[in-house]
């Protein structure tokens, strides 16, 4: 098992030179997200996975592998099933009545739609950050400690240590360390979103799902979150849904393009944005469609 905070030394940092072609939107875009060889077994493995809301199709026959310690962006027009697929990974779709899944969706080798899966355990392994910052109406400290507490860590010192570690990981520590007892709702939107990330990190997940984490934030806050994602990549497997294609290009290693519930194309980000294999993808990333 990969522990967050482990040294990312074994990660090959040497990157291939970005494939520069005529249609590259901007040469600087891929500076942080150059394609690199992804080692090891895929952490999330989807095989012909479909999800239905009653009769309606959410996603259909998705087959893709997501590798550990990488950022995978999911892009696509509204209603294409990006969020549905993301929420299937930690089964947050269960909140919606009449949901039915078919096919196989594995996280670390376990089928998450197996009846025997322990949902709380799964969700502690697969953390989630939502579109709108949604801190609990509690203190900053209690927000971060929330998940940690019911994992059985009740000792004061251990909790303090975990809170500090998560807030540092979310680059929020320096801003809030003096008033951890303050209500989380008193923070700014960007700070709240970083707090939500810190909160998700507290349960020590392997995977971090982000559902349009910057759509409610201003550009400066967005920039900080993106920096944070780049930092976290070394320890976590991140799947991010975004509407913002520049963002996808900036932060992700690989990009999946969804349309009408189907996976159209899944490749290196640089490939998707520069020389996609499918016409549909090209139309979308160049703004002719969607």
């Amino acid at each position, binding site marked *: 098992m990969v522990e967050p905070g482990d040294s990312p030394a074994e990660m090959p940092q040497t990157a291939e030179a970005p494939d520069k072609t005529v249609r590259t939107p901007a040469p600087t875009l891929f500076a942080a997200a150059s394609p690199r060889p992804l080692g090891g077994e895929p952490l999330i493995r989807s095989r012909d996975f479909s999800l239905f809301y009653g009769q309606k199709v959410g996603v259909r026959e998705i087959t893709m592998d997501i590798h550990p310690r990488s950022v995978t962006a999911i892009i696509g027009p509204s209603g294409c099933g990006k969020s549905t697929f993301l929420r299937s990974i930690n089964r947050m779709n269960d909140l919606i009545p009449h949901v039915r899944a078919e096919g196989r969706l594995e996280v670390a080798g376990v089928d998450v739609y197996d009846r025997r899966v322990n949902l709380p355990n799964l*969700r502690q392994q697969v*953390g989630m950050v939502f579109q709108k910052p949604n801190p*609990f109406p509690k203190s900053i400290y209690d927000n971060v400690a929330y998940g940690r507490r019911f994992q059985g860590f009740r000792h004061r010192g251990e909790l303090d240590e975990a809170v500090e570690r998560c807030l540092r990981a979310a680059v929020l520590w320096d801003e809030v360390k003096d008033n951890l007892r303050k209500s989380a709702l008193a923070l700014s939107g960007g700070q709240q979103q970083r707090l939500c990330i810190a909160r998700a990190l507290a349960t020590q997940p392997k995977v971090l799902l982000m559902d349009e984490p910057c759509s409610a934030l201003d550009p400066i806050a967005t920039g900080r979150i993106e920096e944070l994602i780049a930092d976290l990549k070394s320890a976590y497997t991140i799947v991010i849904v975004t509407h913002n294609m520049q963002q996808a290009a900036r932060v992700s290693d690989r990009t999946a393009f969804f349309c009408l519930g189907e996976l159209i194309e899944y490749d290196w980000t640089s490939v998707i944005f520069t020389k996609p294999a499918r016409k549909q993808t090209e139309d979308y990333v160049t703004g002719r469609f969607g």
Partner: protein
Amino acid sequence: MTSQPPISDPERPSRRLWVRGLCDRLFTGLASGSVLLIALALVVVLAPMLWRGATAVVFKGTVEFRRMQLEQFKRGDPAAVEAEMAEVSRARQPVYDLLDRFSRGIATEDLVEESRRINREFGKQLEARDTPAQDRVELRSLAKRLRDDLMEALEATDKTAALAALGRVLRCADDPCLKGTVADGFFTLAKDYRHVVETVDLSRRAEYAKTLGEVRDAIKALFGPRPGEPVPSLDMDRYGATRWDMAEKQLARLLTVEKWVEVQPGRPLQRVEAPREREFAGTDLAPLFPLMREHAADMLRPERTFYWQYFLDGSLSSHYFGGVGPEILGTLLITLVAIAFSMPLGVISAAYLVECAGDGRTVHLIRTSINTLAGVPSIVFGLFGLAFFVIFLLPKLGLPGNSCVLAGGLTLGVLVLPIIIRASEEAVRSVPPTYKEAALALGASRLRCFVTVTLPAALPGILTGVILSVSRAAGETAPILFVAGAAVAAPAWPPWEAMTRETVTLTYSSYNMAVGDRLAALVPHNQYGMVTTLILLVLILNITAILVRSRVAKRLRGQ
């Protein structure tokens, strides 16, 4: 193509604006006016009650009040009260003297008895002195004649006849044989009575006797039993007027006489008031009235009193004296039990309705039932509580099957349950779903999510339901009647022992005072005081709950 109408009419823009402004102002005025009207009506309804209720605590207490407080509640300085009592006794003495002197002439049965006694004593004295037999017979017959004359005078209703009889008696006053004997009593008696006959209209003696009784009663109500008289067994009879307002009422009863006279034949009688002094004009009692009118304050010594212990004291002679301490305690305890029972149950029900129940037929039925339950008359709940808790459940649990605080609290709990369920349901439903999502995404189970996130966020709304319930439970009378109340009960202390005992409550005691007997008329301040206490109690409970709620809400908003 038709031309667009202009956005503003250049012809009459000001007029349109003017009409709209007027309508705006009219609406605002109407709305705020009606709110003001409601507030005013509330004040008009409540203010007199609160004002009269306040007189139970702030009033002019007389020396009788201080004596009562000392003797019944061991409160105050005994030496000071005793000194004060001595002073007022001195001030009251002339009243008693006047009364005694006058009543000697009116209540002649006593005098008749006394003249008989003198005659008997005289006979005994003669025997003891060894008077020669001849003299003794003579003296005995003389004494008997004197007695008969005296009795004739005492029983006469005609002034001249009485005076003639008295003259016959007094003629013998200088008889040397009677000098220095018990028979002298005849002459003092006759002299005293001659004075009465000269001042009093004997033909009206029966009338005097009746009004004298009224005067005596009024004096007794003012000053309490006369020193030296046996102490009455009822607490309420042991003291005179303890409050100056009560004293003034008694004083009015003493000073004026109320008569119903027929002004016109066939019409209802009319009430007329006349000074009582006029009835006793010229008699020995006449000076009593100016004396009482002018010196009543000296005899009672009213002092401004702040009787805050009213909220702690128990009551004497069913609320004739004392306070409402046990009532407050009983009300608080029953309300507490009701909330402690209904709040968890209500929250759990709300959790079920929001989190677990779907939209099925059963849930619809449950919801309808809850709404119906909220409209059931409280007396029905009372009977339910009697049948279920008192008669069925408590004996099953090994507790005595009588009305008690526990049964009362549970019944009121059932009564307020719909209120709490509805408020809690609304509150739980209005918690942002993002909170729940966040908690679930962190791996919290549904129960943990509800307890740690949803419930704290819903707390202000739940507290709103509790506030409403407290007011309802504390103010409810009908169920208490069946399941918890008693006219007389020991204070509900300590609480765990009181659980299985009956109790007095503010509502039930107010009801009891109102329907019980003349008490509410005698001590209206206590009745009003009790109701005012109830209002204040509910107000304090509500304010506390509102403060708690605003604190919680503030914390939730992150301030």
